[in-house]
């Protein structure tokens, strides 16, 4: 008789290379957000941005089993998803800097960042906007006879949009291969779940769509990976959609205009002790996937990528003003 494998799900499921790559991408998300913030402070980026620092495990662990043919739809807080799904930070920075080399050729910026080639159908400036779109992508996969799944990221705030209801209902009725991942960071802008939402956990709403719903610690890489693994498997097997709720927290304000009058310093600090990257790193080390030195090297590599990305972006050309109406319609 073999011993039961008591190691965390991720450790026993993914190859060490995959795990190291996941850690790298989580560092990359963190450093990318910091680089973006810094660039914003220095006036290199205009507009606003929504940073996902603190939510890296949710983004990365949700994408572990996706190929470039699988799709995601993302949100206004979408940098992490984009990196987790495989985008290059150079082209992402270029987009933030409004450059022609950016993923959207400088037309989209932070809120519309997408990388269709790696299956990222895009961030969305409209809360809830991606929900029906994800269902549509799943419909395509089903009708075209592909085994692709779509992962739909959305926030706790988004779950009160009518689009949430309509999307989950249709996905369920048509048994589509889509996984709804609610990144519940406790607030939609300044409004807490308790003040906006008539259930304690978003996953409690899954019964209204006859789909499995599960709430996990969103800062625990392995917990997220395991929940999403089952949901993705279910989707690929043609058994329909699932709802996974990742409980997490954003360390920064909602956006650059946030004066943080709705949550306490204590609450923020408490959550910072639950840093998903530090936890994952420690877990990998504890299970012998890494040692401290190689973990440091991974972190350093992420920093180097980030810095190279910023340089690439800075050096890139801006779009020509005469092209302001380019890309409105297909060119023929």
């Amino acid at each position, binding site marked *: 008789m073999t011993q039961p494998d008591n190691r965390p799900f991720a450790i026993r499921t993914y190859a060490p290379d995959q795990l190291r790559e996941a850690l790298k991408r989580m560092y990359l998300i963190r450093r990318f957000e910091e680089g973006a913030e810094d660039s914003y402070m220095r006036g290199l980026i205009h507009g606003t941005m929504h940073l996902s620092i603190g939510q890296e495990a949710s983004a990365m662990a949700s994408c572990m089993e996706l190929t470039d043919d699988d799709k995601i739809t993302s949100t206004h807080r979408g940098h992490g998803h984009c990196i987790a799904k495989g985008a290059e930070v150079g082209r992402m920075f270029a987009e933030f800097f409004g450059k022609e080399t*950016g993923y959207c050729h400088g037309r989209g910026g932070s809120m519309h960042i997408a990388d269709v080639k790696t299956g990222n159908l895009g961030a969305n400036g409209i809360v809830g906007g991606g929900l*029906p779109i994800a269902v549509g992508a799943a419909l395509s996969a089903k009708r075209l006879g592909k085994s692709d799944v779509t992962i739909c990221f959305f926030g706790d705030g988004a779950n009160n949009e009518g689009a949430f209801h309509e999307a989950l209902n249709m996905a369920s009725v048509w048994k589509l291969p889509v996984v709804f991942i609610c990144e519940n960071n406790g607030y939609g802008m300044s409004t807490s779940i308790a003040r906006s939402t008539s259930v304690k956990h978003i996953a409690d709403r899954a019964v209204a769509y006859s789909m499995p719903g599960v709430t996990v610690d969103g800062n625990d890489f392995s917990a997220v990976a395991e929940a999403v693994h089952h949901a993705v498997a279910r989707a690929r097997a043609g058994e329909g959609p699932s709802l996974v709720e990742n409980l997490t927290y954003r360390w920064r304000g909602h956006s650059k205009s946030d004066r943080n009058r709705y949550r306490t310093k204590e609450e923020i600090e408490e959550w910072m002790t639950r840093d998903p990257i530090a936890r994952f790193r420690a877990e990998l080390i504890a299970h012998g996937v890494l040692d401290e030195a190689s973990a440091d090297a991974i972190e350093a590599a992420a920093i180097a990528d980030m810095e190279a990305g910023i340089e690439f972006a800075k050096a890139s050309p801006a779009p020509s003003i005469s092209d302001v109406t380019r890309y409105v319609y297909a060119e023929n």
Partner: protein
Amino acid sequence: MNAMTDKPSSQPQNLRTLSYSEAIREAMAIAMEADPTVILMGEDIGVYGGAFQVTLDLVDRFGTDRVMDTPISELGGAGVAVGAALTGLKPIFEFQFSDFAMLAMEQIVNQAAKLRYMLGGEASVPVVFRLPAGSGTGAAAQHSQSIEAWFGHVPGLKVLQPATPEDAKGMLLAALADPDPVMIFEHKLLYKMKGHVPEGSYLTPVGKALVRREGTDVTIVAGSIMLHRALEAAEQLTKDGINAEVIDLRCIRPIDHETILASVRKTGKLMVVYEGVKAFGVGAEISAMVAESDAFDFLDAPILRLGAADAPVPYNPDLERASVPQVDSIEAAARRLTRREV
């Protein structure tokens, strides 16, 4: 249907006539036969055949996987169509009444129309929205609107309004061949009108208006059902020796400037007839387009707009009729304009 409307067809003489709704249905069937990625979505478009019976029997031919009854979820349904279009399908999404598109403005305008641009050309959303529009059915304020002008204001969309069965088929096929989102406003009162429809596949050019009746004294631009009323009014006007040129607008976005301007340069007088509310309607754009063009100098009278009364569409049939342009009001207005009594 006025015989004149068949004139522009360059197809070989063919006596086959179909109704407007049959023509649309034929276009869908042709497209679905030719391209397995074309699907239909909408409320009650399956066994019910759609509120106006346009999709009748298509579910028997193509099955429920390709003729999908959606729940009553316009925002979500339109969004599913957008997402499907983004990833390899070509959905034709029917709103049961164009009024209900108001529930889906977000997906139509914020998503479908803008995705290509926001993604810097890296995405394409080949979705077609079909929208039964207009008054005259006694269905009152929430089921009788003509809101097509709104979509004229939205870059990224194309907006069509067929007036004849031939165009209804050709425009739908053209919309499906288009890589960008297209909205087709169909008029409920036209569904049963019959006219010549060529066999097989053909594309009505998007963005081209058509002179349906040549004339010299006044240009009347009208689309959809108003074309037929304008043509009838034009016939009446000949009794007074007034020879109106009638242009079928066909496409609200983009608008065919050239055809309209050429006509105005010839007649020196312009009148725009449309069913939407007068203010901020299709007539405003056409009037303004002419008034800022070099055709301005050819105008020898004010530009007249004939649109709906400034009110929701009323239920009472006489009020309803009075609230939108009719043959007699078009005729009277054209008479005033040609005599410069405006």
